[in-house]
């Protein structure tokens, strides 16, 4: 419990720091969104329009940094992340609620599957060292070194050509209205297969490797020998003694990757034109949409924090020895 309190204090501090950084970064940026908008349209906005845009976005007023900072906090506590420039006048929170579920579902599920699969294979590879699984390690290493956006591009070319089952872009069939009906869900799943596969392939080997190495380390612990000495069945020793303990250090890695669900795989979303938050970030960066940028960054940071908190709790549950230091 005390441990948790301590962690919570840390989280609060980090959240504060992140929000503050978040506040300052866009304000140190040169250039402004109106110019960006003009740039983006390359001539479709006449120069007269510039002023009307400044007025529109409320950028014609000047307030001191401090009072802006204060307002920013007040807004955050009201759940108000400001108004997006690119999607003016849509509030940032609306854009985020629109794209977040896609990312969370696609990358979240994939990350969990990848972790589960990789850990499982890693357990086997570590347990039966020298077996064929172990021989695959160099291959796995190579695969994990391939940038996944590149893998995605290849996948699109090879698998998503005309006539293929796999759509090459989007989150669902154009024309469908998101709802909980079979057709929509089916379409969403169909659209998520290829990106999911890409993430899975390129991330699973990392889990295999780390789990394998942990297994190898744990397998030489005394309690494993004791478990063998006790005459327990092979599976019991492998699962309940070796894997169970080897899993612990991986939990924090898993949490970290859960946290990076939101921001970590933005390239996959870009490559597959997936309507998630990573793509939003890309857009926001491209068009200097500070409020959106801030909102996304905040969401990412908070999700990393939440994931870490979850990992801490998981650690508490999984490891009876409460750790003091990390």
């Amino acid at each position: 419990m005390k441990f948790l309190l301590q962690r919570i204090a840390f989280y609060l501090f980090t959240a504060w720091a992140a929000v503050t950084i978040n506040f300052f970064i866009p304000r140190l940026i040169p250039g402004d969104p109106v110019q960006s908008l003009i740039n983006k349209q390359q001539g479709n906005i006449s120069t007269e329009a510039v002023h009307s845009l400044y007025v529109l976005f409320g950028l014609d007023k000047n307030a001191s940094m401090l009072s802006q900072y204060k307002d920013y906090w007040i807004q955050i506590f009201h759940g108000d992340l400001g108004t997006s420039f690119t999607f003016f006048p849509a509030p940032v929170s609306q854009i985020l609620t629109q794209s977040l579920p896609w990312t969370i579902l696609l990358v979240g599920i994939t990350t969990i599957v990848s972790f589960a699969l990789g850990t499982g294979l890693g357990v086997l590879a570590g347990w039966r060292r020298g077996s064929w699984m172990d021989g695959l390690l160099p291959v796995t290493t190579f695969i994990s070194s391939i940038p996944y956006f590149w893998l995605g591009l290849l996948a699109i070319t090879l698998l998503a050509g005309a006539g293929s089952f796999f759509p090459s872009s989007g989150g669902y069939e154009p024309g469908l209205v998101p709802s909980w009906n079979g057709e929509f869900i089916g379409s969403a799943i169909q659209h998520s297969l290829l990106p999911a596969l890409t993430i899975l392939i390129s991330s699973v080997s990392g889990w295999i490797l780390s789990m394998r190495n942990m297994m190898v380390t744990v397998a030489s612990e005394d309690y494993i020998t004791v478990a063998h000495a006790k005459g327990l069945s092979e599976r019991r020793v492998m699962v309940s003694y070796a894997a169970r303990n080897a899993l612990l250090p991986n939990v924090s890695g898993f949490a970290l990757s859960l946290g990076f669900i939101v921001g970590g795989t933005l390239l996959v979303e870009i490559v597959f034109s997936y309507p998630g938050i990573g793509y939003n970030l890309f857009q926001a960066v491209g068009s200097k949409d500070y409020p959106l940028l801030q909102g996304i960054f905040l969401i990412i940071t908070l999700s990393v924090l939440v994931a870490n908190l979850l990992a801490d709790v998981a650690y508490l549950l999984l490891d009876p020895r409460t750790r003091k230091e990390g």
Partner: protein
Amino acid sequence: MKPPVLEIKNFNVDYGLGDQAVQAVRDVTLTLHRGEVLGLAGESGSGKSTLAYGVTRLLPPPGVISGGSVIYHPPGGEPYDVMALSNSELRAFRWAETSIVFQGAMNSLNPVHKVSTQMLDVIRAHEPQLTQEARVARAKEMLKLVGISADRMDAYPHQLSGGMRQRVMIGMALVLEPQVVIMDEPTTALDVVMQRQILAQLVELRERLDFSVLFITHDLSLLVEFSDRIAIMYGGRIVEQAKSADLYKDSLHPYSEGLLKSFPALRGPRKELAGIPGSPPDLRGMPTGCAFHPRCPHAFDRCSTEIPVLGVPEARNDPNREVACWLPGRVPVG
């Protein structure tokens, strides 16, 4: 003398294979009798632990058993060779027939499982026919025997003190009432008060459950007090074995002699102790002949060329004691 339960014959253990191999245990023949405590002592690195792990085939890589047999005599059954068991037979044999207690109890207990889980695991693996209640009852009873109250069943290892953990391990070792318990320095990490308590409990239990103990330590004074018979190892071989009192009073091998002269006594006259000069041999470059000869005050030519064999010494024609030494009077009969 009681009948044997475990006969170790010409046992050899290597670390590594081929040219790289380190011969850690050489040609060890040793018999453990029913109900006795057999002490195994010797310098560190002399192969005591290797022998204990080898007998149960628990040596970690790169250890391999390169020869010999370990014949186990089940009560009322035909004896069989542990070395010839398949993995699944070995699993069934372990703990039910021979259990083992390692030096560090903290490391022997899985830190993430409750004591009860780890205990019940053993019972479930070996006696699947028992109901859960019966298993719990058995585990509780065993813990009580080693002086741990049943309410500590659900504690995690880190919540117990070192002594308690060691006792849990001993309790766990006895929970299936095996014939043989091997203990590798089970109390070295504890202080003397705790050590004595645990040993006292063990002795008491042995009387009730009638198992045999192979007790390994380098603390000779403890062994003399605690065991029925003592075997002394040096450089991977048994150099002497005898009843503990005999060995203490009248050791035959110069190494045993040196060992006994090395520990200061708490009582009796204060005397200067000489110790054993030199340092233990390197297993990769064993001296020729008797491994002890470079340090032996009585060494003569033969010692550096011929390896002495363990046997009943000529001088004391006592079948209960054996020694491996070329010194006059200690050369084995026959």
